[in-house]
Each structure stands twice: as structure tokens, then as C-alpha cells.
């Protein structure tokens, strides 16, 4: 039921959008490319869902997590370098102290 409603709304929006564009063409008013492209963007139909492998969602999530964790790795590396630099400093100051 919900799907039919969405499809119908989609068609209505598309029809309205094309009507608008047709009007503007007739009246030589096609000077708002931003508005036109916005109308066309929202009026375009979505892809056929049946051909999308459902596992793709899990894969995308894994890629996002991987990117995030990769960032953590980067941060961890930097913090390790900073720590070891601090340690060498401490070492030097201890030597000087003695």
C-alpha cells in the first residue's frame, strides 16, 4: 500500500515538474537553472530496488567503519610517536639531571 502511494506521488511530482518546465519554455522564462535542476532532481524516479543486492548495505557500513578505524590507526600512530618523543625527552632530562 505504501509503495503504491509513493509511486503515485512520484508520478504527480514528475508531471507537475514537466508542466512547469513546459510552461517556462513556452514563455521563454527558463532563466532559473537552479530551480529547474532542483525540480528535475526530485522528480527523477529511483532505481529499481530489486536489482540492488541487499548485502550491499552491510558492505557499505563495513567500509565506513573501516574508514573510521583507519583514522583511529592514524591517530594512534601519531600519539605513539608523540609518546616516544616525550620519552626520549624525559631520558635526556634525566641524563642531564644526573
Amino acid at each position, binding site marked *: 500500500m505504501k509503495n503504491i502511494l509513493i509511486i503515485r506521488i512520484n508520478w504527480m511530482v514528475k508531471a507537475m515538474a514537466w508542466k512547469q518546465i513546459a510552461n517556462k519554455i513556452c514563455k521563454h522564462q527558463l532563466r532559473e537553472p537552479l530551480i529547474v535542476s532542483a525540480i528535475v532532481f526530485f522528480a527523477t524516479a529511483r*532505481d529499481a*530496488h530489486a*536489482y*540492488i543486492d*541487499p*548485502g*550491499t*548495505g*552491510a*558492505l*557499505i*557500513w*563495513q*567500509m*565506513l*567503519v*573501516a574508514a573510521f*578505524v*583507519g583514522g583511529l*590507526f*592514524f591517530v594512534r600512530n601519531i600519539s605513539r610517536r608523540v609518546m616516544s618523543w616525550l620519552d626520549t625527552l624525559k631520558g635526556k632530562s634525566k641524563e642531564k639531571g644526573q
Partner: protein
Amino acid sequence: MLRNSFRDPEGRLLVSNGKVLRVVTRQGMRSFQSFLASPVAQSFVSDRRIVSTKVFGEPEADEVIEKEALRPFLNGMEVGAVVEHERVPFQSYPHEWPAELLFAAADLTLELAERLLTDRLGLKDATPFNVLFRGAEPVFIDVLSFEERHAGDPIWLPYGQFVRTFITPLLLHKYFGLFPNMFFLARREGLEPEDVYKLCGPVRRLLPPFLTLVSIPKWLGVTSYAARTDTYVKKKFTEPERATYILRYLFKRLRRLLMRLAPVAGQRSSWTGYMADMTHYTTDQFATKQSFVECALREFQPRSVLDVGCNSGMFSMLAAKCGARVVAIDSDPVVLGDLARAAWKDRLDILPLVVDLTRPTPAIGWQNAECPGFLERARGAFDAVFMLAVVHHMLVSERIPLEEIVDLTADLARDIVILEFVAPQDEMFRRLARGREYLYDGLTVESFEAAWRRRFEIVRSQHIEHTQRSLYLLRKTA
């Protein structure tokens, strides 16, 4: 000949003369050789957690193919090698496993994925059909599932399949009390996030673990990124160290999740209290039954036993302790789960399966031949069959005619059958019959024995004192 191996271009699995032979094509030799060369993989083989491999290289491979007449099944593939695997005694499938076995298979698969990383080896897929059971111990059977990993690849492609086929069913088991055998028949590839999403209420969807396992993949699945054809093409490589770090984090997270979903003891069903609350046997009467079975086992020493309606598995354990390989079937997954735990604890060779003998698992898959049905696998596969206090269930609840029960049992057993006859006057029988006792007026001890005598001889029988039950030891004659 096995009809379930046709998808992989790197090889084909064939069974000939009781031998399990895998033909590896030239295309698959590279991955196969990295598997043979990997110390971690070979340690799994020596631990008997990956199936054993005996490799026949180039010249011998052709000899084996000619000897076993495998050429017609090769469809012109270029042969790289032929591998002989040990035979796993009884095949079983996820739609027959209690949740505990599915968990064990998941545990093995994840451990393989984690530990093979050190040798730069990975799994191409993560599905319960790659695992069979020896008793209650899982063994990984698809050696062509291993492939070399690129050192800088931070993505584990089978993640989605692992979640779908292992994690989601265990999730439903823990949170909704559903059993894997309920839906694996209909959904062989497991459950998609979308399916589980519908089961969750609006609050549960936002709580872990459902949020990251179910809701987010579902929401991401409808974005336009999901519709792109290059999502699955491996392109984003990073430095090896970082890739390893990312992958180890992923496996650690999955491991923690899996442990959280481990099925625990203490679940209740209508059959869990059966042995403990048993009021229809006194201790003496039960001891009679036990010693009857033990004597029969000692006399005939069956190497393989099918225990029908095993419940807590008391008699399966007796048989296993006498050295038999046991397949224990029952229609209740909860008691089978407890039996799996007992088998693990005492290291007994018992394979608990959720099978109702009156409606056994059908053959499924391509041409209904990929996964043979239970009866096809079980016929003639057992030296002994136990049907203790189960025939009256089949007669009364399922209304199977006695003659047909006799014929099926004769098909399943090679040698002996241990049977318990419950007379219509018995209280349990009357409870099942529920007012329709007139249907069983003709069922007397004599008519019962006459029916079994058609295919068996009665070696000995024993009436259990003060009950309406008798035990029979039968030997197959026809």
C-alpha cells in the same frame, strides 16, 4: 555422484565409490597452493578442524580421474590437481542444526578468518554450508574457499554473508526465541537485515546490537551508493599495517558479538523437564530400561546408532560411551541444544539434529539435489536404531500405520533395533489418544509383535515391571 558442487570455477567436488574427491582446476591452483603452504591452515588440518587433504599432482591426477571415471563430470575443465578428502560420516545442514551447532560453526569460521590473516590468507565466503559436523565438533570442508589476500586490503567481503547466515539467526534465537531450523529451509541464504528490521519495534531498532547489524545496513542499502555497480570492486587499498589493524578490529568486534549471542543452557520447552519430572518410571523401572539397552549394546557392538526421539540423550550417551557414532534426532531444538553441550563436555561422538522422523527434512537446492533429504542420507547408514518410547507418538499423534513404521525402520537399520512398546492402556498413551482410544483397540502385544516379525526377528524382550511397557531387541531379517 554429488550434485551440489557446480558454482565454483576453481573446482568440483565428486563422490565416487565412497571416496570424496575434489578436482581443482588450473585456475584454482594458485589459491590452493597458498592454502597448502600456509602453516596456520595446516595446523587446522592437523587439529582435524579442516578436512584432511591428500593431494594428487599432475601425473597421478589423471590416473585417479581415469580410475574413478570422473572425466564425464568435468565438463572440459583443465585439471590442476585432484584432492582426496576424508569422508565425514553423516552430512547435516543448517536447517537441521540446533542453535548450539550453528554457533559452533560460526565460531570455527570466524577463527579461521582471524588466524589465517597472519599468513595473508582469507576466506572467499562465510556460509554454514562450508561446515560439517563430526559428532558435535565442526569441521571446515571447503578448502577452495581460501584465497590470497592483498596485503593492503582492509575489507572482508564475506562480512555481509557471515552476518546474514550466522549472526542474524543467532540474534533471533537470543532475542526472539526463534530457532534456526525454522527458517533455514525457506531462506537458505540466511536472513537479510530488512527481514529482521520488520520484526523489531521502533525502540529495538535503535539499540545495539540491532542498530549496527540490522538498521544501519538496511538504511544504507537504499542509498544511491548501493546501486552503483563498482561497490564490490576492491579498489581502496591502504598500507598493510593499517589494513591489518582495521581487519583485526573488525574480527575482534565480531568475536565479541558472537560470544554475546552464544546460546546458553537453561532454556525451557515442553520437553526439557521430561526426564527430570518423569513420573511414569520409577528408579527401578528406569534402571531396567538402561540395563536392557546396555546389554544389547555390549552384545552387538554397533558402530553407528540412530537414536529417534532422543530427548535428553541419555541412551545416545550410553551408546556413544560404548564406542558408537551416534546421530540423535528429536523435534525439540532445546533438548538437542542441551545434548550438544553434554557431547562437548564429555567429548562424545553424538550429532544432535532437529529432525521429526514423521516429517523428515526434504531435499532442497538446485534440482532438489544439492542437499539430499534426511531419509536419503540415513537409509542403510546405521547399524542400530533406537526407538525408545517414540513409536506410540508416531502411531497416535501422527497416525502413521504400524506397518509403515516397521518398513521405514527396516530401511534405516542395518542390523538391530531397540524398541519400547507402550500399550494403549498406558497413561501416556491415553493422554495422547485423548478420547480416541477406540482407534487402538487392535493394538495388542501380539499384533505389535506380529507387525515387527515381518522384517525382524525378536531376539529378546522384557516387560518393565508394573507398567504397560515392554522393551524389544530386534534383529533385521528381511
